[in-house]
């Protein structure tokens, strides 16, 4: 555990990718199995401890620290695990458990006995080891090392025997502590075999298209589709069908209605939507399904899942990924016409000849129930990751409203001394009702202004939250509005950010709830 904690600390503070790669490689080369494989799993995010949750850390913190001092410390540090690691009341020594002890303990200890075990560990460890331990529990190490970087380090460790692409390809057939993988990399074992198991293949992603890029595109080389407002999925058909999210998470259990239609031996790329009677339902309805690990029959009937297909990666064991997009699309269409699978349709190809036509269609994306356009080069092979210049996403323009700042809270980390998180509202008759919170979009200068403004216009305090004079208007940009129970107004905004400070605008002229409600799909007046 000490070597692992040391690795995390060094990764965090090493600025360059090369330094991080060197640290990871050295760790994988010098630490024995199974600890090195568990470190790899931790960095790749493939360790899960169902009974060890952040709530456990909060519980321990409340048992061993003063609640107010804890709240103030958390507010300053900005990270739960680090706050507890630093303020834990013992000094700790050098008698830390090993990483495999910790992993086994977190995995196998009954939930009721876990707090006592973690408490013992925390008492025995130094702040640095405590932090590593708590990070394992909270998940997300946040040390600037990704699964991708770890795989590059593994490829380097193999000294040319294995490329990172080969590791990516078999990655989803592997499980911690990855002993066969290390044996293969070190030339001591065979290539780990998927043994016929369906494998998630890393998806190809699009780059955002900036206005300045548009002119340089040659329309003759591109195929256009709508960008659908669902989630990206990969479908693995066959005797053991699976549905994966974009990140490779197996979500089959949550979508039995999709999996039931995947008898054919194909690997498909598409968008998961919720559709009823031919109409795509709002994203909020898809969220209802995503929130459930296993849906009830009523949920499935109320929010039927659907996939809109746009690419085919494998057909009957044949890898199509090296073919041009146009050829894969033709294979997809032929297959689809022959098999006619249920619960699925094809993402239509949009005909166009000029960029201006596309621009016009993008302007109508919102009415068409789409997030914008996708532009794919007709000759592009299917390349894992986000290769430049092949696929573009051209998102629709955001919506915007003028809203009044109602409450402010200090931010975390770098912004921990600034009031930088704002709850804003719109008028419902004579009263303001909150519709969202925004933290981003402002420059440091605007942040300094807002911080100062909040301090001088506070009318009440509720713990860390300040209620402010209802006089400052912000222009809020957002991607869409939906029904929600989170706010008193019954409306929530998706991806809200502060577009501008409207110091010129009187609060009374800010938008009304009716204006916002009109922006919810299907509720236009």
């Amino acid at each position: 555990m000490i070597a692992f904690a040391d690795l995390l600390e060094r990764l965090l503070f090493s600025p360059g990718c090369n330094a991080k790669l060197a640290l990871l490689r050295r760790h994988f080369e010098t630490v024995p199995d199974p600890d090195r494989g568990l470190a790899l799993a931790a960095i790749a995010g493939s360790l899960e401890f169902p009974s060890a949750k952040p709530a456990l850390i909060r519980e321990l913190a409340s048992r061993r620290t003063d609640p107010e001092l804890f709240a103030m410390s958390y507010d300053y540090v900005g990270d739960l695990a680090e706050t507890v690691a630093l303020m834990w009341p013992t000094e700790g020594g050098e008698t830390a458990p090993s990483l495999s002890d910790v992993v086994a303990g977190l995995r196998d200890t009954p939930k009721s006995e876990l707090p006592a075990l973690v408490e013992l560990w925390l008492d025995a460890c130094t702040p640095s080891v405590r932090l590593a331990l708590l990070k394992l529990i909270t998940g997300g190490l946040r040390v600037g090392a990704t699964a991708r970087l770890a795989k590059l380090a593994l490829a380097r460790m193999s000294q040319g025997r294995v490329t990172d692409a080969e590791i990516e390809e078999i990655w989803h057939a592997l499980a911690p502590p990855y002993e066969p993988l290390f044996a293969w990399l070190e030339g001591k074992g065979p290539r780990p075999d998927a043994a016929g198991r369906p494998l998630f293949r890393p998806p190809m992603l699009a780059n955002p298209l900036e206005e300045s890029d548009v002119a340089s595109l040659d329309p003759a080389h591109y195929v256009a589709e709508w960008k659908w407002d669902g989630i990206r999925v990969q479908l693995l058909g066959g005797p053991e069908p699976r549905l994966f999210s974009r990140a490779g998470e197996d979500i089959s259990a949550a979508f039995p209605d999709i999996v039931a239609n995947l008898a054919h031996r194909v690997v498909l790329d598409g968008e998961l939507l919720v559709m009823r009677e031919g109409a795509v339902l709002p994203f909020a309805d898809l969220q209802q399904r995503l929130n459930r690990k296993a849906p009830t029959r009523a949920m499935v009937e109320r929010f039927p899942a659907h996939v809109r297909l746009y690419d085919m990666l494998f057909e009957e064991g044949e890898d199509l990924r090296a073919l041009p997009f146009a050829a894969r699309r033709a294979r997809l269409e032929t297959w689809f016409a022959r098999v006619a699978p249920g619960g699925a349709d094809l993402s239509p190809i949009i005909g166009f000849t000029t960029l201006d036509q596309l621009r016009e269609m993008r302007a109508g994306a919102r009415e068409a129930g789409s997030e914008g356009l996708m532009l794919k080069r007709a000759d592009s092979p299917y390349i894992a990751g986000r290769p430049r210049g092949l696929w573009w996403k051209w998102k629709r323009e955001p919506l915007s409203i003028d809203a009044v700042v109602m409450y402010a809270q200090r931010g975390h980390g770098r912004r921990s001394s600034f009031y930088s998180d704002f709850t804003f509202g719109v008028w419902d008759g004579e009263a303001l009702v909150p519709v969202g919170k925004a933290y981003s979009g402002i420059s440091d200068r605007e942040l300094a202004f807002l911080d100062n403004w909040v301090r001088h216009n506070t009318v009440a305090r509720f713990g860390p939250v300040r209620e402010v004079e209802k006089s400052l208007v912000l222009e809020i940009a957002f991607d869409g509005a939906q029904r929600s129970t989170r706010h008193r107004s019954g409306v929530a905004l998706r991806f809200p950010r502060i577009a501008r400070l409207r110091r010129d605008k009187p609060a009374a002229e800010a938008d009304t709830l009716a204006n916002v409600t009109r922006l919810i799909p299907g509720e236009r007046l």
Partner: protein
Amino acid sequence: MAHPSTWLTTRPAGLYCEPGGFYLDPHGAVTKAVVTHGHSDHARPGHGAVLATAETLAVMHARNAAPASERAIRYGETLVVNGVAITLQPAGHVLGSAQIVLEHAGSRAVVSGDYKRAADPTCATFVPVPCDVFITEATFALPVFRHPPAAAEIARLLASIALFPERTHVVGCYALGKAQRLIALLRGAGWDRPIYLHGALQTLCDLYVELGIELGELRPVGAGSHLAGEIVLAPPSAIADRWARRLGDPVICAASGWMRVRQRAKQGGVELPLVISDHADWPELLSTADDVAAPEIWVTHGREDALIHALGQRGIRGRALRLVGREVEE
């Protein structure tokens, strides 16, 4: 007895002793001031008359902040001004740093300035003085701030030099106090090679040597020097800036109490954070409150909310003075 709250007040320029007619560490130029130590947020230029330790006055001269007239007193010596007895006692913060003990009308207040309790080879150790009102800083007043022993942090620096002998270790540190303490700690750990200085640190290192603090061989960083395997000290603003590029792949280190919090250390581009502070950490703030046994503690600057909360739990009345012009930098 007249409680200190009847004769110590806050004015726009800072804390003021009414019967004595003088300010304590005022942040603007005033006619009469008593100054705890030479850091620029406590020792401002432009005062008429200043009372302080000889070392603090020497620092003010070196920083072009000398007052029109000055009076030096030694630790433990008492001077009576308009019926207010002023005594200076060591604060353990930097060379010459003092707590100002004020006695008037049967009550005693102690203005501690900035202070620490850990041993420091470059200055006298803090002396707790029992009082009716203790006036404290709160720079590191959160339980997450616990400074490890400075010697252990120096050992980490030396271990890193052993690991990267081909790289220069450049340590960001404040020019007054921190730089000289680091040098003295390195000497204590057996580092007897020359230590290289950024030009901005030279004057105060020279002054420390003049005032009798041994620092060993110090050399200026020349232009175009690579200094592989050496230690360079520089102001925090220079370590991650163009100045450091001449050093050839330097390991950027910083010595400060803030280095305890990772994101804070990371934002400065620091590769090796060293948690070495000249301010009291959380346990020291609380143990000092116990040692001075004051029923009331006033907090000048920093994280006063947490400290006042914790003092309240010990039955001590805390009060935030919210003095302006204090930096919480270290």
